[in-house]
């Protein structure tokens, strides 16, 4: 029963469903009890392929699902308007080998990726990924992405951190924005349907199969189950667990990862979060690597270029993780400025001269003025590392179709974890990941949906009921919104202080109890806004719940991974320990809601595990 | 203050808005301004010709500017669209197009150098408020005025650049210097619709009517505008526009130069006030 899906029909059917549910509180329960006796609710809105998230991955998934089987109804759900995604914020470029003339190859790209990921990368998948990334560059070109060009009119690439060859293809200094809009244009022209202003609350899994998702129409407040033959989670990363110490957008709250975890899928490598060395002190926005690339100095409170102690030959141009650790060390050892979360070191570009700053670093100068009232021409910028990318994510069982272990549930982009990035992502691989895994997931989900039937949707029904009750319970005319924001701020600070760049058992143990205390406070939160119409406070409440859950998962894995690898630095276990931890951490939730950890071996094929040296 | 200008009347002053020409010619000598009309000036393209041929439009304006340069004088115009078109052409020429366009101007033995600035009557007056105040003979103290800037006297700011485009003050300053009261006027920065009156007539009539009604609501005795195109739109089409929205209000629409003329004590007839379509007799 393929049901052709239109937005109007969805809204209509959603209204009908909601109408049936919302007959006053007493009536609501009766209505629910009555309808729950039937195994199949034909009134439930549905579509064949439901994609959650409208960044690069979600949009590529949608177009390719439609291409794979034009008969399918494909819908992209987004809590904002598409194009407000983290994809737009990437600046540097998109990796992919298109020029083989100087000895580059997919294998070499894969090797760099594996090594960059400190060998926590699944090697076979990484080769497939790099081949697809190379092909994706030409495909994006064909779809209309304006790339900067070589003399021969080919796509232009620039050198990038951790890459042994030049393969970071780019479009000026806003490659991510250009990729996002190329994907959006393609989706629009291809007739992809959007459900904007809808947020994912939960994924329904029953009898070991994905049934669909519970969505909240933020505009109306309606919470409704939507059945789908296959669901793709492409909701992006979860770096907002560090709240104001991340470069990612407000919406990167890991909603899809949290929903998948609750639905029984493992959260793989949750402790693996990349830190970028240069973020704005107030708010964490990125200062791009160009500042150092062009010759900027990093200075401590002695006026000293401290990188000489940490990377004497490369100085400020050392790899991201080394520079980030160096800055945090200076802060910790009292050679920085400011206190607590507002501690910082200086990034000085004044010696480059006014003219060069204005010409070559306009964006960075703009960010300095915008967030810190600092003109880089006259003053050094104040900076601190910032959480930048989630290597961990929803466990993907099979790279070939980006399926999770649960039939009908797929994932793509930063929300997913194959793992391609292992313990540390290579610069330029995030955009490739979005478009490559998005496409594969779209095709995989379409292939699955072409053969599958809709499931009964019983679990979905239950979940929708629970969320409706929860909205009623949590929102009212009384309550204290400040308590919610306080939890969010404390969550960010605790995660940063204890699970940031330097981790120890003591810190993580203290974080674990801290998170429990925050969870307890969260459970008693009441939001003083009962209005269902565009209740952004409730959205923030839902997001905060997800961030707390994901923080607990990351904390558990960080405690258990008693080694240092890639972005995960344990000061009490400074060495990488391949004998015990050449494994993915797999955090799952049991039926009573408790998080548990398991491990899965890394897929090692052609590349020998060796020490990561540059 | 700069006293002598290469005057660019613009097409509308030679035809549909002769009262604008009469009034500026009447006020100039009193204010001590000498306007020397540029011999052989051509249409600026009126923000329309570029839809057909942007290159020809640029060439024509390069020629206009080169003609003024020959006179060794800065350019003054009253029409905001001419102001925008000339300033925009100048910006294009000064930012890389000069050499190329000069090869075309050479066909008529002309050359653009970039020596003449382009200004408007409004800006000139705003820069010399004290002098104007001193010359006011009949302060317009009983007159409530709604000032209507017109798009191309403020937007785009990067081409015009005289003042903030969202919070301009030059016009209010000038009108106050004439002794008149400036009333709060919601639509002072709106568009009259003139440039699309043919293709988008229905919308334009609505826009025109909205402006007239907004002025009437603020109890203005008249709307004053520095731009003869806005004046033409709001004056000539006012009756039609008000009919389409079934509005009764009628508000006289004056050129800036006419208002200045009244304050300088120049007789209404010399300012061409009887050429205005909506009756202005109560103002003179």
């Amino acid at each position, binding site marked *: 029963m393929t049901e052709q899906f239109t937005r109007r029909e969805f809204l209509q059917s959603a209204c009908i469903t909601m109408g049936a549910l919302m007959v006053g509180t007493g009536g609501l329960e009766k209505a629910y009890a009555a309808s729950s006796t039937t195994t199949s609710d034909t009134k439930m809105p549905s579509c064949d392929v439901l994609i959650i998230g409208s960044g690069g991955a979600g949009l590529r998934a949608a177009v390719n699902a439609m291409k794979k089987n034009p008969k399918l109804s494909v819908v992209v759900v987004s809590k904002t308007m598409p*194009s407000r995604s983290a994809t737009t914020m990437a600046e540097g470029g998109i990796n992919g080998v298109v020029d083989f003339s100087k000895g580059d190859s997919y294998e070499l790209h894969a090797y760099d990726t594996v090594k960059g990921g400190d060998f926590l990368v699944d090697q076979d998948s990484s080769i497939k990924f790099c081949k697809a990334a190379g092909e994706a560059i030409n495909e994006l070109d064909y779809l209309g992405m304006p790339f900067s060009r070589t003399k021969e009119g080919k796509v232009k690439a620039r050198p990038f951190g951790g890459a042994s060859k030049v393969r970071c293809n780019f479009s000026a200094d806003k490659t991510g924005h250009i990729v996002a*809009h190329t994907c959006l244009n393609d989706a629009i022209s291809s007739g992809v349907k959007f459900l904007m202003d809808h947020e994912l609350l939960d994924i329904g899994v029953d009898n070991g199969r994905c049934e669909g998702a519970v969505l909240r129409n933020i505009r109306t407040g309606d919470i409704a189950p939507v059945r789908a033959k296959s669901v793709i989670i492409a909701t992006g990363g979860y770096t907002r667990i560090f709240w104001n110490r991340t470069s990612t957008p407000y919406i990167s709250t890991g909603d899809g990862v949290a929903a998948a975890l609750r639905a029984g899928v493992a959260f793989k490598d949750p402790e693996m979060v990349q830190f970028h060395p240069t973020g704005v002190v107030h708010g964490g926005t990125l200062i791009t690597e160009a500042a150092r690339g062009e010759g900027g100095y990093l200075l401590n409170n002695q006026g000293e270029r401290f990188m000489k102690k940490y990377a004497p030959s490369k100085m400020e141009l050392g790899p991201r993780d080394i520079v980030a650790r160096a800055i945090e060390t200076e802060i910790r050892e009292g050679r920085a400025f400011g206190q607590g979360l507002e501690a910082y070191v200086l990034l000085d570009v004044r010696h480059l001269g006014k003219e060069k700053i204005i010409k070559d670093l306009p964006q960075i100068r703009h960010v300095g003025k915008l967030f810190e009232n600092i003109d880089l021409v006259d003053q050094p910028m104040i900076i601190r590392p910032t959480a930048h990318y989630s290597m961990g994510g929803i466990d993907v069982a099979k790279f070939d179709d980006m399926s999770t272990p649960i039939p009908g549930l797929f994932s793509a982009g930063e929300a997913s974890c194959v793992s391609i990035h292992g313990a540390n992502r290579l610069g330029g691989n995030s955009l490739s990941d979005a478009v490559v895994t998005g496409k594969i997931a779209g095709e995989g989900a379409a292939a699955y949906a072409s053969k599958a039937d809709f499931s009964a949707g019983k679990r979905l029904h239950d979940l929708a009921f629970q969320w409706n009750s929860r909205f009623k319970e949590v929102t009212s005319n009384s309550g204290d919104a400040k308590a919610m924001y306080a939890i969010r701020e404390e969550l960010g600070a605790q995660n940063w202080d204890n699970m940031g760049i330097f981790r120890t058992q003591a810190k993580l143990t203290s974080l674990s109890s801290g998170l429990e205390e925050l969870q307890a406070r969260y459970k008693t939160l009441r939001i003083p806004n009962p209005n269902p119409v565009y209740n952004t406070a409730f959205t923030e409440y839902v997001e905060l719940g997800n961030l707390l859950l994901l923080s607990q998962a990351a904390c558990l894995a960080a405690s258990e991974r008693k080694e240092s690898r890639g972005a995960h630095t344990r000061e009490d276990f400074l060495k990488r320990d391949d004998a015990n931890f050449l494994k993915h951490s797999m955090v799952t939730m049991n039926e009573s809601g408790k998080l548990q950890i398991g491990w899965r071996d890394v897929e090692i094929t052609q590349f020998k595990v060796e020490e990561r040296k540059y | 203050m700069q006293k002598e200008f290469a005057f660019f009347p613009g097409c509308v002053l030679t035809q549909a808005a002769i009262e604008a020409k009469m009034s500026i010619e009447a006020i100039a000598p009193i204010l001590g301004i000498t306007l020397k009309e540029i011999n052989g000036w051509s249409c600026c393209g009126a923000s329309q010709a570029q839809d057909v041929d942007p290159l020809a439009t640029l060439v024509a304006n390069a020629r206009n500017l080169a003609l003024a340069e020959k006179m060794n004088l800065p350019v003054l115009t009253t029409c905001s669209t001419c102001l925008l078109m000339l300033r925009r052409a100048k910006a294009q020429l000064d930012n890389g197009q000069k050499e190329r366009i000069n090869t075309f101007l050479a066909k008529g033995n002309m050359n653009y150098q970039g020596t003449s600035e382009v200004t408007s009557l409004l800006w000139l007056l705003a820069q010399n408020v004290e002098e104007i105040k001193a010359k006011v003979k009949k302060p317009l103290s009983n007159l409530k005025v709604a000032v209507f800037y017109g798009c191309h006297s403020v937007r785009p700011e990067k081409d015009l650049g005289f003042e903030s485009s969202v919070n301009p003050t030059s016009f209010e300053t000038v009108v106050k210097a004439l002794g008149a009261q400036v009333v709060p006027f919601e639509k002072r920065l709106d568009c009259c619709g003139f440039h699309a009156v043919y293709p988008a007539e229905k919308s334009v009539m609505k826009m025109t009517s909205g402006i007239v009604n907004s002025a009437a609501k603020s109890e203005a005795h008249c709307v004053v505008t520095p731009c003869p195109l806005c004046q033409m739109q709001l004056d000539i089409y006012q009756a039609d526009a008000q009919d389409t929205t079934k509005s009764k209000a009628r508000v006289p629409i004056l050129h800036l130069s006419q208002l200045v003329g009244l304050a300088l004590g120049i007789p209404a007839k010399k300012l061409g006030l009887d050429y205005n379509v909506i009756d202005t007799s109560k103002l003179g």
Partner: protein
Amino acid sequence: MKFIIERFDGKKSYEQTYTVEKKDIEALTLLSVLLLIKQTQDVTLNFTASCRCAICGACGVRVNGHAYIACDSKMTELFEEYKDTDTFRIAPLANFKVISDLVVDWEPAMENLRKIKPALVAKSEFSVKEGCRQNQEEFDRIIKQWDCILCGVCASECNKLSADNSDYMEPFVFTHAWRAANDSRSKDPMIHVKPSVTNGLWNCVHCQECANRCPKHISSADDIASLRALAMRKGLNSGVGPAHAKSFYTDLVEDSGRLNEIRLALRTEGVSTALRAGTAITLMGAGKMNPLEIFGGHTIEGHKDLVKMIEAAHAANKE
């Protein structure tokens, strides 16, 4: 300092005033002020924001009637712009349907984007496998328009949309059409130009608001003009709009060198069309126009030279 915010709760519209200390907000952006108000004074206040660094386009709002992206607007700059004010009026973007407070509905705009088919349709010599070829100059030509972040600021300011949105589209939609049509890799610009023409290309009122307010300094007004020129070059020149534009050009190049209002009316709408010809007659009646001008008027001095210059430009452009 007072912030008067226009609110809408789904049923009723009202204004709400929030008071903040100037010293607390001086160093902030407008978005940070909105967040401060939401987090410390009124959690029911709704607005959207995502990237906070002017690349995602989520936080467009109006300040004192003019559109800004909140995250890219420093309060110090707003103080400078609106001198001596101790009150700011914050409103949702105009020309969008308001869903709640400062949140607007993007769906109709997305439907308009669909109309102009924003994606490139590549020339047949290119392929998915091999990609395309484009030189740096061709890239430079279109890249400015690719800065568009779909923030809606241009649409909010558009005088034509305010008057009537039924026969027009958001200015950024035309910019999207422009960049697809002017891409050297495009198979056929008309894929994007035709729907632009049928959806209001000629209805732009030239108010320059879009060009003036765009936070990325894109001029949709220029893109609209350029699309019009392209449409006419490709033979889409019937209708009032093209005739109107052409008559200016004809006056400039082929006739006197100056514009003639009567000829303009006649050329645009034809002799029999009453209203505008009637207007010209009103003008003559008021003594403003010389009816003899219809037969030519005075040709400007040096007109032959002007024509030569334009011909030279055309010849050079063809090379």
